């Protein structure tokens, strides 16, 4: 079955990578960029860069307009409606750190933070370190054999001491959708804050933060075909109002003398210093592009590719899938073959996949693995990419066995 991506031509790097003999199957790490984004960056830099929210001059006004337009587009992408707004950070990691610092004052010794066993380090370490600072208990929700957060266990573990729940929507290792809506409902029933790590989830579906009812939703631009250096933090108005500023500097201040200061509310109060202006403008162009992509067709294409990938892998002797991947990516190990050896030989053949712990060391250890190879897909991938991967895999296995 030949699966052709109608969007491949919109991403010039795919052609360039092909000329370099590279097959890109690492979009879960970072995605390639559409021409629309490249054009927007070039246009911004070629027609007058300016700082935002500061200057009265025309270039400043245009940059601010484009910057703020992206804020609206990002909120629309999440169907935020009027329930909250978007704060720009320097990445998803930065957004989680903002939350862990900005909410710190609300925690008391003995309070509990609930995460899950599959969290990326970005949604683990800020909470782990907050727990250490404040004498909190970090509760880790276990997974089912399918690689999904165990809701039965969660019902027992989320309780009156829970002050915050922070979980991933789509696992970057297991490729499984997580039951975030019931988890949020459980946490809300106990008055806890809810944080969703949408870094992977936002790329593979349109989500509705109003329906999810989360307080915060975090994603990074670069995985959603946008520029790097930009993170999006959506927050509900009431939740944002409880955040304390965490970084101090230009433009986040209302009034200051040498010894005292008052600060702006969200979003600007959390955007100290010059934000990534070009990156945010580029993200706006990416979202415009993605809005023109037929989402049903894209989801179907991704699902077909994913099925092909899964089927091809399980056909091969000794392949063990990690969990039961549903979308976007498949992680696997091979009996008797070291991941590092396989990764080495795939690299030699121009196959760009990720090997190792995928920034989720506790999860990899929990699964009893030392690492895994992850193949991840973008809308620009096609069945030829997978064929090249499978050929390379067969060659590598022939050598190693």
């Amino acid at each position, binding site marked *: 079955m030949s699966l052709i991506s109608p969007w491949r031509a919109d991403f010039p790097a795919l052609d360039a990578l092909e000329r370099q003999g590279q097959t890109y199957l690492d979009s879960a790490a970072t995605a390639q960029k559409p021409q629309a984004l490249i054009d927007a960056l070039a246009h911004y830099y070629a027609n007058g860069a300016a700082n935002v929210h500061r200057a009265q001059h025309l270039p400043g006004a245009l940059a601010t307009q484009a910057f703020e337009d992206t804020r609206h587009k990002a909120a629309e992408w999440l169907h935020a409606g009027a329930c909250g707004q978007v704060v720009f950070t320097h990445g998803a990691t930065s957004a989680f750190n903002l939350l862990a610092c900005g909410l710190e004052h609300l925690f008391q010794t003995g309070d509990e933070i609930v995460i899950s066993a599959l969290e990326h380090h970005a949604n683990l370490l800020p909470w782990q370190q907050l727990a250490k600072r404040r004498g909190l208990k970090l509760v880790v929700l276990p997974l089912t054999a399918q690689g999904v957060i165990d809701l039965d266990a969660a019902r027992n573990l989320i309780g009156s001491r829970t002050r915050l729940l922070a979980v991933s929507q789509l696992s970057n290792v297991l490729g499984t959708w997580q039951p975030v809506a019931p988890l949020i409902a459980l946490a809300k029933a106990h008055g806890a804050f809810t944080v969703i790590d949408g870094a992977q989830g936002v790329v593979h579906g349109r989500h509705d933060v109003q329906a999810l009812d989360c307080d915060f939703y975090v994603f990074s631009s670069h995985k959603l075909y946008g520029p790097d250096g930009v993170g999006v933090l959506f927050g509900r108005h009431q939740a944002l109002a409880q955040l304390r500023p965490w970084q101090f500097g230009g433009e986040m201040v209302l009034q200051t003398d040498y010894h005292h200061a008052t600060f702006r509310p969200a979003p600007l109060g959390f955007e100290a210093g010059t934000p990534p202006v070009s990156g945010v403008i580029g993200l706006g162009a990416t979202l415009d592009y993605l809005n023109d992509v037929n989402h049903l067709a894209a989801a179907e294409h991704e699902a077909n590719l994913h099925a092909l990938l899964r089927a091809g892998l399980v056909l091969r002797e000794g392949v063990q899938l990690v969990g039961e991947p549903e979308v976007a990516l498949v992680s696997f190990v091979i009996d008797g073959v*070291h*991941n*590092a*050896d396989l*990764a*080495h*030989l795939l690299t*030699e*053949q121009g196959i760009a996949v990720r*090997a*190792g*712990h995928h920034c989720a060391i506790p999860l990899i250890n929990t699964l009893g693995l*030392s*690492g895994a190879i992850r193949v991840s897909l973008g809308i620009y991938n096609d069945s030829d990419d997978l064929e090249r991967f499978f050929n390379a895999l067969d*060659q590598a296995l022939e*050598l*190693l066995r």
Partner: protein
Amino acid sequence: MNLPEPARTAVETFGTSLSWEQRARLLMQWGDRLPAMADDEKTDEHLVDGCESKVWLLADVIDGHWQFRAASDARLIRGLVALLLARVNGLSAQDLEQVDLPDWFNQLGLSRHLSPSRSNGLNAVLQKMRQLAG
């Protein structure tokens, strides 16, 4: 500089134009020829931090000359480490300092495996060697 005998062999073997399969086969052969390390020597203390695969490294000085021993659970890394040992084993501390390792892997057509973006840990092995010899 006079290369140690195993290093000359390595250059003769790897320094020619090879297909990726030939290179991989040779690396595995070199790895397989590394003297086995006893299990009780494969301790956390001897583990090189920062490798995706496990690499253990031990160093001894015999009559003023460095002798490293290494093991890895990954075959190709074992081969790369074997090539590293071929270049440095038997050198005095003074000679060891003079070794230009990026150049060494360049001579072998393997410089890509030393690039900082590679997480195979070869750089970490070098660092640990220098630490031990420091």
